[in-house]
């Protein structure tokens, strides 16, 4: 069989239109999830049992329930209890919810990677709690966070393809429309895969760059 380059060419523009929506969902959802995950991580370290348990339940739900089921539940289930949101908003919210659960675990591991004596040593040198975070804890865990967060961002970027099931006009949805039109599965899906791959590689490079930047103190 041969590959029809004409179809590849004509499908690029609609696919890029889809990529724009995918990017919007990720650019809004992932940072929101990082904020959510940070809050959850502080909850998990809290001395209040209610906060600790609720953060634990949250993380376990994210880890043990498939993203697809979560998307179905919010897209088909929420309108039944009177919460009707557009697909885009559900996409952002679901991305944030999922990112948050995983980021909470990443953050916990990052804090765990820090030698316990460091915080105490910094405190005994007379630094305030905030100063300890700012000058001792954060600079060191950024080097640990950067690669893990990059993998998470790439995972969520790829998982955003699931939003095609709720007719959000993102990359995979556009790709499905094109294959329904042309039946050129290899050409359209191949191009789609290439776009996903290229964006993931770019994200990975950005992640490596930020890791090098975050760990520059180790080489100084």
């Amino acid at each position, binding site marked *: 069989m041969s590959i029809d380059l004409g179809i590849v060419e004509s499908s690029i523009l609609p696919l890029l239109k889809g990529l724009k929506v995918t990017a919007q969902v990720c650019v809004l959802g992932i940072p929101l999830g990082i904020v959510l995950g940070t809050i959850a991580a502080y909850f998990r370290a809290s001395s209040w049992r209610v906060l600790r348990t609720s953060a634990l339940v949250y993380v*376990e*739900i994210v*880890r*043990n*329930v*498939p*993203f*697809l*089921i*979560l998307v*179905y*539940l919010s897209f*088909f*289930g*929420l309108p*039944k*209890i009177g919460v009707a949101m557009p697909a885009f908003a559900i996409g952002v919210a679901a991305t944030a919810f999922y990112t948050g659960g995983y980021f909470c675990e990443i953050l916990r591991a990052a804090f765990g990677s820090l030698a316990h004596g460091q915080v105490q040593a910094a405190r005994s040198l007379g630094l305030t709690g905030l100063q300890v975070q700012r000058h001792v804890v954060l600079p060191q865990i950024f080097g640990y966070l950067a690669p893990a967060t990059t993998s998470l961002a790439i995972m969520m970027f790829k998982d955003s393809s*699931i939003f095609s*099931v709720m007719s959000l006009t993102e990359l995979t949805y556009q790709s499905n429309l094109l294959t329904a039109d042309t039946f050129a599965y290899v050409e359209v899906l191949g191009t789609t895969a290439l776009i996903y791959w290229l964006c993931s590689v770019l994200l990975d490079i950005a992640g490596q760059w930020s890791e090098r930047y975050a760990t520059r103190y180790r080489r100084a």
Partner: protein
Amino acid sequence: MQVWRYIVFPQLFYRSIPPLTNEFTMLLKASSLMSIIAVHDLATVARDATLQTNLPLQVFSATAVVYFAILFLASSASRGLERRVAKVLPNVH
């Protein structure tokens, strides 16, 4: 061979329990995506049931609980296995 049997393998086994469990969890979650190509799995059954009953909230919540139960049991079992291996082979970690 003895080195492999008594030194390498026990440590290898012990250390691969958590990442293997993680991999299993990810794989089972990803398996729900088979429903998109009409493999008759749990997610497909859930979607069909929603169409028949028009009770998406209940059906998908139940589905989520089923996935959660399987995976939560699996990770608890894996932690149990890890503890037990550590007890039987005190030098693995």
